[in-house]
């Protein structure tokens, strides 16, 4: 969405990102495998969970971060309207699955599969 608002190209579900000059090559995880696209910079890239190892904040840095000033702003300060335009009517529990039966061995499982018409 950000990419669209900025009118810039996007690379979503990225599993590999390489910057070369004024473009970035992004390898994306798609349904059947991988897809590679080249995007003109600036571009918006969203990552897949296997892209890299996150950097964890070290304790000294956490301590240092505590002393940094924080500027509290509201969306209105930036002229942004955040009124939701979708209303949640209700939230319900999905149908629960109940635990079924346990079979003792492969033969019994075979019998069940046959009964379902899966195995011949």
């Amino acid at each position, binding site marked *: 969405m950000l990419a669209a608002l900025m*009118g810039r190209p*996007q690379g979503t579900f990225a599993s590999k990102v390489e910057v070369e000059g004024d473009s970035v090559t992004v390898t994306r995880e798609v349904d059947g495998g991988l897809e590679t696209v080249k995007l*003109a910079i600036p571009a918006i890239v969203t990552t897949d969970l296997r892209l890299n190892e996150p950097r964890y904040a070290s304790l000294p840095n956490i301590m240092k971060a505590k002393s940094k000033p924080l500027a509290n702003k509201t969306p209105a300060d930036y002229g942004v309207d955040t009124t*939701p335009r979708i209303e949640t009517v209700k939230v319900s529990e999905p149908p629960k699955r109940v635990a079924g039966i346990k079979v003792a061995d*492969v033969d019994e*499982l075979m019998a069940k*599969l046959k009964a379902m018409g899966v*195995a011949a």
Partner: protein
Amino acid sequence: MKTLVWVEHDAGQVKDATLACVTAASKLGEVHLLVAGEGVGPVAEAAAKIAGVGKVHVAEGATYAYALPEAVATLVVELMGHHDAFLAPATANGKNIAPRVAALLDVMQISEILSVEGDATFTRPIYAGNAIATVKSSEAKLVITVRGTSFEKAAREGGTGEIEAVSSAGDAGGATFIGQEISKSERPELTSAKIIVSGGRALQNSENFHSIIEPLADKLGAGVGASRAAVDAGYVPNDYQVGQTGKIVAPEVYMAVGISGAIQHLAGMKDSKTIIAINKDEDAPIFQVADIGLVGDLFKIVPELTSKL
């Protein structure tokens, strides 16, 4: 209400997820389709035959060849001038395009809908499928992605849609397609397979995965899936992954082999009709959702099962 459905196609075929999307759209009103791509004449003709389709908008051009969201979204926005709702399947491509369309139209997207409850009311999963929210939109235009496993597929034949060419050169907006590596497989695609055999970390390595899970799957004519643990451990490629961050599947029979059943995995398969679990830990959570459970060593059970089939 006039709806526009983005048709996902591959090798001249309309994908199954699109058919489910057509069913969802038909609950809202008139169904129009958008077929964009290069050399898409046959796809457009196939699309026009889908039951319940009114009109098929066809955008022909090299820019649209690989469903680049920059190009397709711009095209969709042009067409949305005379449509009230845009629907796309919640696939990698659909999820790439729809948010871009939503942003350009300045509307809130409604993702992964499970059912249509009214003109602008839908249900969708939240918290990894642990709760179902019913949401009502007050937008002038709707932008929706549809979970393919939650709707019946519209029939491929029986429709008499009218084909209309869209003249738009398209602009890929700074994106270029370089290439793709699609894993080739003779097995059915996960999201549309009737039977799925999935393996987990208990298989220990890639060789075991291939020598234990795959022969069973081939005997059953099943698709092959995996848990995130098995994918992270590198036994199989990422696109095998079933679960919240992988594929959402709902086959007739789902066989989980050596999968303990983490909640994120269950989120991806609990709509399966029958779940069969094979695991050596009898307290594994997978048995709480399985219709048929078999406690034991998969290295003995699965080859035995394969040989008896």
